[in-house]
């Protein structure tokens, strides 16, 4: 009897959580942030769901150490919990989150004074039909880019930031941000042509 009751209660709680999540899951980042600041745990869950993967991906490329990238990602979200921004620019938390993530990665890099080489173990190729790239190519390309170029490319891809947001974050002119991206793309194209 007790088990049935417990099961029933757990199902109710789960249902309640799910319905709460459903209520705000389509909300804008600004609304999520408002809920988050008011102490709604579901808002935190949804923010994690939206940004966790891309922040870890970005930091993995920055630090070349997946475990360290996870630690820095955790630290990024801890910062969000402790010092949440009062408002977001352009209704998106992305610039704020990636700015914190990048600063943490940069500080960490300065402290560590070394980088761990990107794991070169054979990896299953996940070639998408209709594309010339596969995962190893992509990672290799990023690893061979200079820090300046890689910064722009990773912020653009993982952070999905606009070029003016990238420029603002890296404290460089908009034209420079755009030039770095084009230059990186040119390198990629060149590598692909040589491979073919």
């Amino acid at each position, binding site marked *: 009897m007790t088990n049935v009751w417990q099961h029933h209660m757990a199902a109710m709680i789960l249902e309640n959580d799910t319905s709460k999540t459903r209520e705000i899951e389509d909300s804008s980042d600004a609304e999520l942030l408002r809920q988050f600041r008011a102490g709604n745990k579901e808002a935190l869950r949804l923010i994690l769901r939206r940004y966790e*993967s891309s922040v870890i991906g970005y930091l993995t490329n920055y630090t070349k150490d997946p475990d360290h990238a996870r630690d820095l990602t955790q630290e990024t979200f801890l910062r969000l919990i402790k010092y949440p921004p009062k408002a977001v620019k352009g209704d998106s938390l992305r610039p704020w989150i990636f700015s914190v993530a990048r600063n943490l990665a940069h500080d960490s890099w300065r402290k560590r004074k070394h980088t761990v080489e990107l794991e070169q173990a054979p990896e299953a190729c996940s070639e998408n039909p209709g594309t010339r790239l596969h995962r190893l190519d992509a990672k290799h390309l990023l690893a061979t880019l200079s820090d300046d170029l890689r910064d722009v490319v990773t912020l653009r891809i993982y952070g999905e930031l606009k070029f003016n947001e990238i420029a603002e974050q890296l404290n460089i002119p908009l034209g420079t941000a755009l030039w770095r991206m084009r230059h990186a793309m040119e390198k990629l194209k060149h590598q692909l042509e040589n491979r073919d």
Partner: protein
Amino acid sequence: MDDQLTPEEQTLEKELSQILKSENHRLDPNQREVLYEAFAQKHTSMWQYWRWIIGPLVAGVALLLAIVLNQQPTPDTFPEFVDPIGVVVEITPIEWPTEAAIDARLQSAESQLNRLIHRNSNYSNQDRTDFKSLKLRISALKQELES
């Protein structure tokens, strides 16, 4: 700004993005747990912080209100206000005692009334009128007694 990349560059960017973002990264469960705990703590501690501010604030305001309200008693809640009337009413019955006793009661009523008037300046105009009429009545009674 995005259209400042050539179509070919945009395609390459898209391909690169598709590949890199196809990986689904997740925090470890314990890292996630740390975040939820920090979140819960933050909001609990915020509540405690406000509780320590709001609690004394409410108590202070209540105390202040009590003091202010106590300083402005209404005639109905001020028992001494009734006394002079009682005294005056008491001395009006037909079976009056000796003149000296009546005089003493009148004096007592008058002095109580004067004390009341000087003790509190917050009486309404109606109260003041009542006091005046009482005083006049006492004076009249005294004069009557003397004559």
